[in-house]
């Protein structure tokens, strides 16, 4: 089974293919296989699909996502992850205070809102995918859970590179969670590194000015990279941060400055690879 990407197709352009029928993202027009979306062409033996670049998040098991609670229902929460359907976080999939192996009681159901309310942000992992495509999430690890103070940046999911870990403590002084669904969470590095985000207690102490500046600069760098369609991972974000140091934080979003910074970042990335 060969799975090779062989180029990029634009909507309406013909895709060279042998089989009369194509997979997702294609249609037959006058006996020619044509792409219906703009994206990369993937061939699996004789099946040709076009995977779109601009699309909602299609989650797979094991993906790390950052989401916002939209509803509190019986025994589960509905989480917005910018996918086609709201994701589901079951009550049995969260770590309750008091130990992991406690059986969920009726009281737990009634006090669900005390743990996670509408509007709260969480980091979670995709446990499974329902038959209709909705994702089932879990926070059964100390590194996942309710997120505290910080900044959320919403970007396209296809810009996030798949890596071994999505939790980064950047050397510039802030921490970052690159959710596979395009939600990037920037937060001040917690002092006690063993205190994971799995707890439900949020620290509401004011964040220092230097940390704030780092986070704002990172946020603007992320927006600059996303505007120029650069793949996001810890190294690219860090290079962008370093290239932006000579400009003021608020100037980074000006188009000319954005272009300059992204060009420097891309140069550095090429040097590193080559």
């Amino acid at each position, binding site marked *: 089974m060969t799975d090779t990407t062989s180029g990029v197709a634009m909507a309406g352009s013909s895709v060279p293919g042998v089989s009369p029928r194509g997979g997702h993202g294609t249609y037959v027009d006058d006996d020619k296989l044509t792409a219906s979306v703009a994206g990369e062409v993937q061939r699996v033996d004789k099946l040709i699909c076009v995977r779109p670049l601009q699309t909602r998040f299609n989650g797979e098991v094991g993906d790390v996502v950052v989401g916002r609670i939209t509803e509190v229902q019986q025994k589960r929460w509905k989480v917005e992850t910018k996918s086609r359907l709201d994701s589901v976080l079951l009550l049995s999939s969260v770590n309750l205070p008091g130990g992991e192996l406690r059986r969920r009681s009726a009281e737990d159901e009634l006090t669900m809102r005390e743990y996670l309310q*509408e*509007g*709260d942000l969480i980091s979670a992992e995709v446990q499974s995918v329902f038959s209709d495509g909705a994702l089932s999430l879990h926070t059964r690890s100390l590194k996942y859970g309710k997120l505290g103070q910080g900044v959320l940046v919403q970007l396209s999911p296809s810009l996030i590179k798949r890596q071994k870990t999505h939790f980064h403590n950047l050397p510039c002084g802030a921490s970052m969670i690159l959710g596979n669904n395009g939600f990037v969470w920037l937060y001040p590095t917690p002092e006690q590194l063993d205190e994971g985000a799995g707890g439900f207690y*949020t620290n509401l102490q004011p*964040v220092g*000015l230097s940390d704030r500046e780092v986070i704002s600069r990172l946020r603007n760098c992320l927006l600059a990279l996303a505007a120029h369609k650069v793949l996001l991972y810890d190294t690219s974000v860090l290079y962008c941060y370093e290239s932006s140091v000579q400009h003021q934080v608020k100037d980074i979003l000006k188009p000319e400055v954005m272009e300059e910074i992204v060009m420097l970042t891309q140069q550095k990335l090429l040097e590193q690879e080559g």
Partner: protein
Amino acid sequence: MATVHVSEAEKVYILHGIRDDLRVDGRSCEDYRHMEIETDVVSNTDGSAKVTLGDTAVLVGVKADIGKPRPAVPNEGYLEFFVDCSANATPEFEGRGGDELGTELSNTLYKVFNNKHSVDLKSLCISAGEHCWVLYVDVLLLQCDGNLYDAISVAIKAALFNTKIPKVHLSADEEGGKEIELSDDPYDCVRLDVENVPCIVTLCKVGHRHVVDANLQEKACSVASLIIAVTHKGTVTCTRKVGMGSLEPESIFEMTQVNASGRPFMLHS
């Protein structure tokens, strides 16, 4: 306005940031986002402008039509405002969802321009009591990321600046009535003097401080905002308070001081 959900912890972060004069995107409390103004974008209008303020985009078209002047002021023309919140901006505006916001915005615009100094209405008169120019100003919201009033007022000013009203020749016809002829030459037109057209500055109260040009997240953390329409000379034409919170008199005074010192910059095409 379009609503955005913010968690409690995010609100606290934003509040403390504004208190320390460092907002989430690095701006200070009195900085505007990057603004781009384009004029003459719609070809079948007499004047048009498109303004992008951060992620907020507004399109304004001005059409001049001949109509009957208002009975109370027979030697003046007038302006008609219509704001359309399109569903492109946010799904909340789908169907009739955007009507409420649209009427609120148009009513504010009427108040802002309801004075003798903003636009020289006498120059819009053709013949007293019978014919005058009516300027239909249509505003279309393309994208909504907070601070609609400021973007709309800048777009209206730019569109009015871009408006070309054809010159009119009056002649008497046989029955004694007046006949109006519009000149066919596209360059034979009258431009409006927009020097005194006011710009709106919205100040949002977040915590104990006020910010200029709030985006949707900062708006979600604020309880009240003050909208002030001011001309370049410093004359205030309209003030309005929106929101459910209350403002103390001292904070209102503080806000007007900020407003006087920092008005949006103008780019002429």
